[in-house]
């Protein structure tokens, strides 16, 4: 699941109708449980679920996981969590593996639905359950006999990173924590440590040989030939692949964009492959890659990554509308990606697909882009903070009352971004003048610039200042752009923006990109629309 503090809004208003209550939901929950009898349908579901997992019937597992589980949640557990492991274990003959998987779903549900988020103990227990799961998978001598649908495997890894992020944020809001919570956090200092998370993800990557597999796959070979005993197994292979995406996200949250992109070596983002069939994973990947490129001032790459993902989402919208829990996150992520794209296109104007352009012209994007073009730094900052990932502090300070560091990491990354924007502040103004000419003497442009600024004229200083801005323009608009090869970090220097120029001694020569109006496209669409309308009119019976 994606970073989201917002998906707790609905549900869990009250914990049940039994009296008396202590007022503390945790105690009340225990209290209520003693009266609680598990509905037969739920029991049957749990047994059937376990059987299907043991028999490895993946399509049925997917159905139970994606459809039945949420349905039962709605039906029986709207205001309560699912039964905990003590109640479930006897029903499924204490099936060890099933209980780990069930517990993961149990906590995931609590994270998603309890207002105010889970309690410290629940966060720790969830963490230790993940340890059990990964130990089971990683310390086996031979591949474990477990097959799960890829959708589930992806959400498992994604949720693991999400819960880490959630924990780090929870811990950092010191001022909101009670003394009991602070004590709990201080006694337990191993859980949700960043090195643990890195270790798990790296171990899954290593165990599956996924890097080598991707390398061979990219060069047209058979990945199975290098996969090894574990990596040939779908469970290990896909966990390895999704762990790479988990690492991408983790490095991004820590502000390490270079490492974030590097970890995806040998994955071609826009190519359909045997690894790319989980849409939520694809979208998440594009968001983090696009963001990392933007922060590395590789605007052309960021624009390509974001717009191709957004196009894909436009075309496959109906795919996501069915499952509401994924839908909210995807809508939010889409909005964030449009914001990132808007920022990139202001800093680095470039042609993008017409249907993307259409969205950016509508809604509030247009106004935001307009403001940014006119150098409104506040607008840049608010677009950035809306669209950026929820950055984390890699090494949080000890928890003390009053030491609030929750916003530090976000502030730091915002600062980095805003420094870049400030360095480029004069470029839109220069661009707007250059757009009017094919050649323009340096002196004349210097005069324009100072007239726009107002104040005294000092030809020599104006000239010097302009020379700096022009060099800066060329430098900032010439970036490494990926074209081919295994690493997203590679590329060649290119000027991908629509306006370019060079200076011949004291004359500026300007090259613009002129895009002819797409009349044909326009008329084709209108004709089809008109035809459709006409057809409908004929069907109306009066």
């Amino acid at each position, binding site marked *: 699941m994606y970073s989201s503090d917002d998906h707790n809004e609905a549900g869990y208003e009250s914990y049940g109708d039994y009296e008396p209550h202590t007022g503390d939901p945790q105690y009340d929950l225990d209290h209520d449980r003693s009266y609680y009898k598990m509905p037969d349908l739920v029991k049957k579901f749990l047994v059937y679920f376990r059987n299907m997992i043991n028999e490895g019937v993946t399509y049925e597992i997917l159905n139970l996981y994606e459809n039945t589980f949420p349905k039962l949640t709605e039906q029986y557990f709207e205001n309560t969590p699912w039964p905990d492991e003590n109640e479930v274990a006897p029903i499924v003959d204490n099936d060890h593996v099933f209980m780990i998987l069930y517990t993961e779903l149990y906590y995931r549900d609590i994270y998603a639905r309890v207002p105010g988020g889970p309690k410290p103990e629940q966060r720790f227990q969830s963490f230790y359950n993940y340890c059990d799961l990964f130990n089971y998978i990683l310390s086996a001598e031979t591949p474990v006999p477990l097959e799960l649908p890829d959708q589930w495997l992806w959400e498992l890894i994604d949720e693991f990173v999400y819960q880490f992020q959630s924990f780090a944020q929870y811990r950092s809001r010191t001022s909101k924590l009670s003394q009991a919570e602070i004590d709990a956090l201080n006694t337990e200092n191993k859980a949700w440590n960043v090195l643990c998370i890195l270790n798990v993800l790296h171990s899954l990557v290593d165990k599956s040989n996924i890097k080598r597999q991707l390398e061979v796959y990219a060069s047209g070979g058979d990945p199975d030939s290098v996969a090894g005993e574990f990596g040939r197994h779908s469970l290990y292979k896909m966990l390895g692949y999704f762990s790479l995406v988990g690492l991408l996200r983790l490095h991004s949250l820590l502000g390490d964009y270079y490492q974030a992109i590097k970890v995806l070596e040998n994955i071609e983002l826009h190519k359909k492959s045997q690894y790319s069939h989980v849409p939520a994973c694809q979208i998440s990947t594009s968001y983090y890659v696009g963001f990392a490129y933007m922060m590395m001032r590789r605007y052309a790459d960021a624009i390509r990554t974001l717009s191709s993902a957004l196009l894909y989402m436009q075309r496959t919208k109906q795919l996501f509308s069915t499952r509401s829990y994924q839908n909210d996150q995807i809508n939010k992520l889409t909005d964030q990606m449009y914001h990132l794209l808007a920022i990139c296109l202001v800093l680095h104007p470039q*042609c993008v697909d017409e249907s993307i352009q259409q969205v950016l012209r509508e809604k509030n994007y247009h106004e935001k882009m307009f403001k940014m073009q006119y150098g409104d730094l506040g607008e840049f900052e608010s677009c950035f903070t809306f669209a950026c990932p929820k950055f984390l502090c890699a*090494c949080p300070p000890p928890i003390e009352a009053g030491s609030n560091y929750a916003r530090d990491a976000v502030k730091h990354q915002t600062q980095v971004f805003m420094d870049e924007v400030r360095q480029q502040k004069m470029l839109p103004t220069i661009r707007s003048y250059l757009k009017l000419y094919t050649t323009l003497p340096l002196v004349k442009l210097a005069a324009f610039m100072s007239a726009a600024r107002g104040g005294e004229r000092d030809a020599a200083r104006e000239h010097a200042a302009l020379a*700096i801005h022009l*060099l*800066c323009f060329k*430098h900032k608009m010439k970036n490494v752009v990926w074209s081919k090869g295994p690493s997203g970090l590679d590329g060649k220097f290119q000027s991908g923006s629509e306006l370019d120029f060079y200076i011949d001694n004291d004359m500026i020569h300007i*090259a613009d990109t002129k895009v*002819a109006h797409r009349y044909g496209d326009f008329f084709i669409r209108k004709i089809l629309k008109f035809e459709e309308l006409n057809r409908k009119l004929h069907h109306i019976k009066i």
Partner: protein
Amino acid sequence: MAETMKQTVAGILKSIERYNPANLQTLERYVDMQSRDNIRLGGYLSVLKLYQFNPEKFNTENETISQIKYLADILEQCDFAQFWNRVHQMPELCNRISGFHDSIRKFVCHVVGITFQTIEKDNLANLLGGIDDVTLKHWVKKYGWRDDGNLIFIANQDENIKTKNITEKIEFDHLAPLMALL
């Protein structure tokens, strides 16, 4: 010695070991060695990573960091005159890293190379940090530029930088549905 060091570091960088604080000293030594030799990104980044995870090991005077950040900022804005001005005021910082000045000049040459077709000789010498005629000749030669008296000829930019016209092309596939309607 240097070779074994390189191999050890390469091993560290590839694995989970890059996050192990016990390796920080090795990596620091490696970076220090390179700052006198030449620069490789990987080692630097992993040292920074370890500083990020272990802030208590981050042993450096803040004064230097803010100076470096300031230099990076004006360099990024291409205010080269101001940059050299500052650099000359802090020789103890910049001379410590061998090849520092020339690395900056390489960057200046890159920006000049993409911006100019011809540039005044004095202007170029200033951008490169007020270098003398002999040194200027060296850089001009290194980049294959040409001395034209008062001007330096950089490259024929008009070959690469020209107005692009994107016209609409209509594919037959798009027209076919219309044909069916007629």
